[in-house]
């Protein structure tokens, strides 16, 4: 008798646990779905280029193959970095060791402050700009009949 009651209780407990786990799983997926829906950041090449040109990473991270100084990466090396590492690198704190250099350079100071004030989406676009630097760029020129009338 006792054994039957114990079996029944355990069976019920198992059913409750299964139901709970199913409910929780449903909640998880709905949360994930909600997260996906709220991420509205679009990677926009033109916006990324404008940000890159505004921040002007290449003023310090040279386009040349050789570093300007041993501790400042070339643009190619920066672009080679993993995106997660880049995300961390984009904060001003990572540039602070060179602050004495910037003290008489208001434009660079302003550019670096701008990095810190970037929104999450802008930061993603800036990372895209940096990663694009090392990627091949194929430019296709298409031609159509002229639509602008001769002056």
């Amino acid at each position, binding site marked *: 008798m006792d054994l039957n009651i114990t079996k029944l209780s355990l069976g019920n407990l198992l059913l409750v646990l299964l139901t709970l786990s199913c409910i929780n799983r449903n909640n998880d997926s709905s949360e994930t779905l909600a997260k996906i829906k709220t991420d509205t950041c679009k990677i926009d090449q*033109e916006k990324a*280029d404008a940000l890159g*040109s505004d921040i*002007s990473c*290449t*003023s*310090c991270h*040279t*386009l*040349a*193959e*050789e570093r*300007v*100084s041993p501790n*400042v990466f070339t643009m190619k090396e920066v672009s080679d970095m993993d995106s997660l590492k880049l995300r961390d690198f984009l904060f001003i704190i990572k540039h602070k060791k060179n602050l004495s*250099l*910037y003290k*008489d*350079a208001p*434009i*660079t100071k302003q*550019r670096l402050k701008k990095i810190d004030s970037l929104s999450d989406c802008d930061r993603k676009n800036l990372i895209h700009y940096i990663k694009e630097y090392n990627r*091949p*760029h*194929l*430019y*296709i*020129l*298409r*031609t*159509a009949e*002229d*639509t*602008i009338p001769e002056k």
Partner: protein
Amino acid sequence: MTLNQLFAKDALAQGKKLSGGITCNGLRIQLRHAPGKMPELLVTGDVTLTIKVFDLTTTGVPKLHSLIAATQSNIANKLRGETMEYDRYLSNYDTKANKFNKNTQALYNVRYRINYIVKLEKISRLSQLSGNDFVLAVVDRIGFKTDNLNTSGLTDGKGGPATVVYNDWCKYPNISTHEFFHTLGLGHIKGTSSKKSLMGEVAGTHNNAVSLNELFIMNKYLMANLVDMSNGQYASPTLNTAENLRKFLNNPTNGFKYNKAKFR
């Protein structure tokens, strides 16, 4: 001394002409330092840009010489003008030694007053192409699939190679300048301003305007090795031009139709 400088010096010692896409005989640097302001470097001098025009067509190219002359003058005109780069991180300029000292660094505003001498040289053999040359390959057709429009030029950005269809070049004389400017780091201009812009994504006979920002971008690419360029004989580093052109032409996705017998 970089390997590149060593080659340049060696070439000079042997009485050879410096070869490569970007060459110069030492740029002049003048340091101006007004109190309370960023030090400014004024960079002046001649820089030669050489673009090898590789005729890979199967048919005759009667207009090629006049197209080359027109493109040469168009590129030189578009690259004319002073540009300013703010806060460029460089080796310290030593006014006593009149050269950059690579052991210390500083930020400078750099004012470029460069006279670009543009040379388009027609070549007919692969052996005439050096690793550090800029190349513009002239082909019969580019079958790269896009929407219903015709593909007239295809370029691998920053360094090239650049390609153009001969018949389309005859029809739209500015397209070779457009393709070469991709080699110098320019992208396409989209939207309404693209209709008159040289870098508009759809070419026409009226597309020939270059903005100050575009000039700045190209100048930045060309002046990337400023320190070495101010240090005597200079030839740009290798771009693996011949090998890259071979891969580019043989990539079936690009759909090039050209005279394979000439590519030797």
